[in-house]
């Protein structure tokens, strides 16, 4: 007997639709109302870009601009450093043979994915306080690097796992030093995974709220904390505009990451 496709189960269509609506309706509302030409967030007053101009020139613009700059520089730095560490970790895990504590290392690398974010946030804050570190830009950066590592690690390790060791052996056989074999052969082959890991780390850093909010200290804002601060004084349509912008950046990066990964798979 042929297996019935899951699509033909009773109620499949309605449940799928319900899930899609719950997931995407709020996002669609925010996106649509960001183009609303009315100071009210519920009444439609025609199409306009006024709230987008408001984000860049309005009363809250300097605050958003500073926060955006912090978010962006932290995301670039955290993603870069986390990717470098994740690449090194992947090489150690997959190319250094069996070493003592290999499984433990694997667990440690991926632990942050399993620990509730709020726990990490509290622990990180306590840690910084205990060692007497003043909270600010640097503490945010360090925290971001830490939780970005597993996200960068996953695509990099997945890619590296698919690369046969004979390429490096061939390079070494043809008189390449260890470094040459890495930079001329292995790294180009790993590149799709590395780029994908970088983009993922970047977007995770850019989006983070909970941990950042705990370790940022007074006066420091990233875009998510600035938005939260602004919302606390009441939701204005400019928040919808800035949220839509962030959503756009996220979608762009995730799509890029996906495309690069897929292209990499086609030509190993």
């Amino acid at each position: 007997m042929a297996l019935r496709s899951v699509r033909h189960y009773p109620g499949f269509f309605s449940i799928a639709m319900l899930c899609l609506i719950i997931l995407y309706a709020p996002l669609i509302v925010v996106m649509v109302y960001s183009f609303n030409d009315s100071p009210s967030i519920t009444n439609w007053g025609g199409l306009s870009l006024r709230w987008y101009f408001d984000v860049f020139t309005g009363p809250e613009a300097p605050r958003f601009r500073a926060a955006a700059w912090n978010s962006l520089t932290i995301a670039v730095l955290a993603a870069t450093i986390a990717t470098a560490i994740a690449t090194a970790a992947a090489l150690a895990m997959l190319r250094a043979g069996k070493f003592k504590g290999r499984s433990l290392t694997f667990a440690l690398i991926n632990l942050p994915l399993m620990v509730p974010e709020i726990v990490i946030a509290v622990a990180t804050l306590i840690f910084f306080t205990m060692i007497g570190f003043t909270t600010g830009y640097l503490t945010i950066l360090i925290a971001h690097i830490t939780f970005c590592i597993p996200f960068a690690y996953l695509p990099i390790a997945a890619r590296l796992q698919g690369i046969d060791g004979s390429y490096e052996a061939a390079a070494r056989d043809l008189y390449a030093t260890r470094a040459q074999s890495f930079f001329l052969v292995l790294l180009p082959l790993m590149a799709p995974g590395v780029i994908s890991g970088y983009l993922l780390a970047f977007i995770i850093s850019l989006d983070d709220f909970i941990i950042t909010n705990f370790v940022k200290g007074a006066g420091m804002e990233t875009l998510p904390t600035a938005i939260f601060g602004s919302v606390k004084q009441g939701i204005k349509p400019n928040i919808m505009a800035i949220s839509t912008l962030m959503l756009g950046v996220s979608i762009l990066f995730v799509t890029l990451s996906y495309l690069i990964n897929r292209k990499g798979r086609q030509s190993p």
Partner: protein
Amino acid sequence: MQTAIDIRTVTKTYGTFTALHGVSLSIMDNEFFTLLGPSGCGKTTLLRMIAGFEDVTKGDILLFGQNIAALDPNLRPVNTVFQQYALFPHMSVIDNVAFGLKMKGFDLPTRRKRAGEMLDMVHLSSFADRLPAQLSGGQQQRVALARALAPQPKVLLLDEPLSALDLKLRQAMRMELKQLQQDTGITFIFVTHDQEEALTMSNRIAVMSAGHVQQIGTPRDIYESPVNRFVADFIGETNLLEVEVASITGDLAQVILPGGHSITCSTATHDPGRHHLSIRPERLTLGPVGTGLEATVDQVIYLGTDLQVLVRLDGGTPLQIRIQNAARIEVPEPGTRIGLQLEEGAARLLAD
């Protein structure tokens, strides 16, 4: 003649498992040398140790007198053709071939020129700018060969390079490889588990099994004078019978076949007692009853170039015989009584 590679009592262990047990081999300069053996016998392991990808647990490997056992692979003037070719997928064919030269520090014009010559040699000049993925398996194989030969290594290692090709191409490549070895004068160490490949290409063969070298010799030595049961059974087809040794004098033995017949044959053992006797099927001839050993035909199998005749000696021992499918051949009917003659060198007494 100079010794190119001298392997001295090399042992390799992985944890508690011993992959090679004190292997010793000398490979001459300009030789086409083959490591032949069944899967898992340690051929690749030995090759990888010569290339430097695998540590030597015990023993030494000398390359033209220099001990290379502890050198990194990039410091050994030895190149490898990998089983799956391992062409760099992100580099064009010409860049792949020029890679070794680049690492050795040759300038761009020299690299281009030499890599071009190598591609000429393997008839792939028009494919220089393609990526490896845009080539057929046979073409990739030749690029791998050109890449490994371009830096002019002292020894070329080939790990079953033909196994991924189809039969016709494989047979053509055998001749091409052999020719290439003669033209370049580079020592080839070739790994295969295909005995036909080994016999047709090699100057000498080392037959291996379970981490031991069983026999080293020319294809003819190995085929006609196997030293033990493993070699006789692994190389070509043979009839193996257990026989009683009547006497051994020098290189000749007098043995008693299961039917009671007594024959004289060459021997690889000097111990009296029961041993195995190898009788090559193509060295047996059929004759009328009364000539040689008495037997009954069981079955005749048509193989195209040959006929395989399965007979049973009086006394019950089955034997297979190969006869050429010549134009005027009399095919014996099953059930016919016949006489069997052993040609010169048909039988050999083996050590266990």
